[in-house]
């Protein structure tokens, strides 16, 4: 059975993404038995949820995107600066 340190390290570094069923099962069993590591895993997951809600919403303002798009196209149509 992996230790708490190993389990939290694997969770935080995304080591389980793409890992085989055996390493994943060992971590799941550990989480089932250890409330501290379960708590840690929940907190790490919550950080991602927060980030998606925070920045996902911020950049979708159509007015901002339209203004930026206009600025990019205006910028690209300027003659090259040779100064």
């Amino acid at each position, binding site marked *: 059975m992996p230790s708490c340190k190993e389990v939290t390290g694997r969770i935080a570094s995304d080591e389980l993404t793409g890992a085989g069923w055996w390493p994943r099962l060992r971590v799941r069993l550990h989480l089932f038995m250890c409330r501290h590591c379960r708590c840690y895993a929940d907190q790490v997951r*919550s950080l991602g949820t927060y980030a998606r809600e925070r920045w996902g919403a911020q950049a979708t303002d159509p007015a901002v995107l339209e203004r930026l798009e206009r600025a990019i196209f205006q910028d690209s149509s300027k003659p090259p600066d040779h100064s």
Partner: protein
Amino acid sequence: MSIDDPQLAAKIRAGDPDAIQRVIRAYLGQILRAALGAGLDPTQAEDVTQATFATFIEKAANFEGRSHIRTWLFGILYKKVAEARRELKRDQQMDDIDEMVEQRFKADGSWMHPPRPVDAQLHDAEVRERIEDCLDTVPIQQRMAFTLREVEGLGSEEMCNILGVTRTNLGVLLYRVRNRLRSCLEAKGVRGRRDAQL
């Protein structure tokens, strides 16, 4: 022509205005979101987004199509953000978060100072405010890794190409940023609705 058109790379290289416009429209929102997630304020994020696409247009003739156009754009963005924050050099040094994490475990790898229970209360206004402060202390390479994974949902291979790191190094970046954020919030004594603490 779709953004996944196999001929897109050739058209971009040839400077086809329609292809370039299609790329800008497809990825403008994503690039701006990543710039904000990387810790720039809204004005800086817009400037860096504009600069990213300006470089894309300028260097379009060099796009060989070996990587996805999105990977190329995020790579340009990453360099622009690093320039804006001038922190890349500092990021590559040893990180004190490693030692802080070590101190939380006993020699056998079990918890010495376990995390305080929290009931996934990271959506509260109080936490929102404090997590912003915590993110400001995170070095840019770690913050970009966190944003690309959590906000944009990119896979490891693409992230490694964008950040110019190996898969192992990417794991270290994610490990450090998540532990840093978690520890920072815990140190700030963030409380949840049911008296739970992070």
